[in-house]
């Protein structure tokens, strides 16, 4: 695999995570339990979509087939998306959303910190910019996980249900393949095995404080999104909603 192809793959993976998570968070607009949380979730969504724009624009430029960010976002089919399965999981209740967010925020934070050392100018600049935004996201999600986990009996139970559901989707975050190998050799991306202990330590510390336990998945971790574009049953619905307008009216302009 050429370095250029690997870089394109990697940008698509990062971009699709940002895009699908942003889309999921956007579903909360107008539906949160209080105004400040509604605003918080949609602000995080906006940051994610902004990051998706930067990543997919760069991917389109590298691909050099005359496409742009919108064509990649709205005109690819499900099996061409390479996001992690975690970000396409249902929003559920606020506790589930914020748990999903926390597990992903810690991952994104450490990944971006590592990418600040990238030999690729774009990724380095992108990481330096985004890591500051993601720091705020992580502070928000972490605070809520603690508050709701170590909250009332009811909030605690809902949070534990969320952790029990989502934990099996966290393994995929650290999967690597040839794309990663090529880019690790060029000093462009980090080895995810180095990030895993940082993620585990931070997540466990926060879950402990939130009085939440990690379920025993007996070694099972869900897989398929990042490497093969094999998604959960939710992905079709997400894309149908997100892509409906541009696909049915391809000539539409804002």
């Amino acid at each position: 695999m050429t370095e250029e192809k690997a870089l394109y793959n990697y940008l698509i993976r990062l971009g699709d995570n940002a895009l699908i998570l942003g889309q999921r968070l956007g579903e909360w607009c107008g539906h949160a339990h209080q105004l400040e949380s509604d605003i918080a979730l949609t602000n995080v969504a906006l940051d994610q979509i902004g990051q998706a724009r930067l990543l997919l624009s760069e991917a389109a430029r590298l691909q050099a087939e005359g496409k742009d960010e919108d064509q990649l976002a709205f005109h690819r089919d499900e099996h061409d998306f390479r996001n992690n399965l975690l970000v396409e999981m249902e929003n559920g209740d606020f506790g589930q959303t914020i748990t999903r967010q926390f597990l992903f925020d810690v991952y994104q934070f450490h990944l971006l910190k590592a990418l600040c050392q990238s030999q690729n100018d774009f990724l380095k600049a992108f990481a330096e910019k985004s890591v500051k935004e993601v720091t705020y996201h992580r502070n928000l999600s972490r605070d809520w996980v603690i508050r709701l986990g170590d909250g009332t009996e009811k909030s605690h139970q809902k949070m534990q249900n969320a952790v029990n559901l989502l934990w099996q989707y966290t393994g995929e975050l650290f999967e690597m393949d040839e794309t990663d190998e090529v880019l690790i050799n060029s000093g462009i991306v980090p080895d995810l095995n180095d990030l895993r202990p940082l993620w585990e330590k931070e997540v466990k510390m926060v879950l402990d404080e939130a009085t939440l336990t990690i379920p025993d998945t007996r070694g099972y971790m869900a897989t398929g999104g990042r490497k093969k574009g094999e998604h959960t049953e939710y992905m079709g619905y997400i894309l149908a909603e997100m892509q409906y307008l541009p696909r049915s009216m391809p000539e539409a302009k804002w």
Partner: protein
Amino acid sequence: MDKQKIYDILESVKDPEIPVLSIADLGILRNVEISDQGKLVITITPTYSGCPAMDTIEEDILTILDSEGYQAEVKTSISPAWTTDWLSEKGRRNLEEYGIAPPSESTTDKSFLTGAHKEIRCPQCKSNNTKMISHFGSTPCKALYKCKACLEPFDYFKCI
């Protein structure tokens, strides 16, 4: 072409959400250059990745320059990453007069990254007895605060 004249013209391009700040005050305007082909190139940088005002700002730049007889191209750069450290003193004063508390610390003071904010002064009554209501406010760059002295809410421009 006189670069200073271009900067003077662009002083009237304001942030669409915070009209007391020009794009120069905010550090959004990064550079004015004449290209090898004699073309005017304006470089801007987004504050937050998803800032929806950037398209409007780009249009405003092109419109105002066009009205003064200049054809220009606008480029967006993400490096170096925008930081509130670039907010001018004038910008900070204008923000507070407008009712938005300016970012309280330099980003070399890493307390903002750990979530421990310095005391934020109420732009209305100037009391330091204030409390954060929400990390996020009406735009991604602002947080929502409440003054416990005068009981008025206000936006705080977050350090980043």
